[in-house]
């Protein structure tokens, strides 16, 4: 069982033989349609964390 907290974790899981993965209980998973460059993935992940912070501020 591999704990996956980031897309990078998922990539590392992909390269291994253990295909049982576990996501944290706060995860929203989104399949994107094509291979993205690392810059784009980072941008999307930044957006996710920015979005999270934005949501946090609004909720407060």
């Amino acid at each position, binding site marked *: 069982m591999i704990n*996956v*907290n*980031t*897309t990078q974790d*998922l*990539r590392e*899981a*992909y390269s291994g033989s253990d*295909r*049982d*993965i*576990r*996501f*944290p*209980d*706060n*995860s*929203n*998973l*989104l*399949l*994107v*349609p*094509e*291979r*993205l460059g690392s810059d784009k*993935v980072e941008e*999307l*992940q930044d*957006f*996710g*964390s920015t*979005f*999270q912070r*934005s*949501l*946090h501020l*609004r*909720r*407060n």
Partner: protein
Amino acid sequence: MAALSRGLFIFVETNFLAEDIESRVNGIMIVGVGNSGSKLAQLVVPGSPKIEVRTLEYSRQRDQRVLEVGDVPEAAGPMTLIDDIVVSGLTLARVAAEIGEEVDASVGLLYKSKSATKLAGVPITYSFRYSRDGGGTPPINSAESLLENPDRLNALSERYFLGNEREFGKLLEGLLA
């Protein structure tokens, strides 16, 4: 504050899944299931046929959804269904019932659930079998399916991104641009 604990995005790139599926189904006739499953199948074998699946009645409980299955392509031999995400197993079960012939499935992500594999009723190979800390099913969707199904997008947005629905929609559109 509850929404904060649900804010983590993990992006699963479908080309990773396509490469993995290709290694398992080489030479077998594959058929994409639904729009996102078909897109994945096209990445594996361009020109692969598709079986349409339409949600007639949406439910957050995936195994309670009412589905309509389109025409099944003719196959000279065994057929492997391709789908990106299998959660309840309902879609595979409905499609396999329409085919009625020798069929199995190769999927990207399979929710780790005995009931899902039982309901699907067909042998399933997978790239990843996933679960979630503390149990339950993490919300998982393809960007494409969400944009094509406003009911799903609205339900997910209202549950997890209330007040930020438009930003979430823009994020999805940006992914597909």
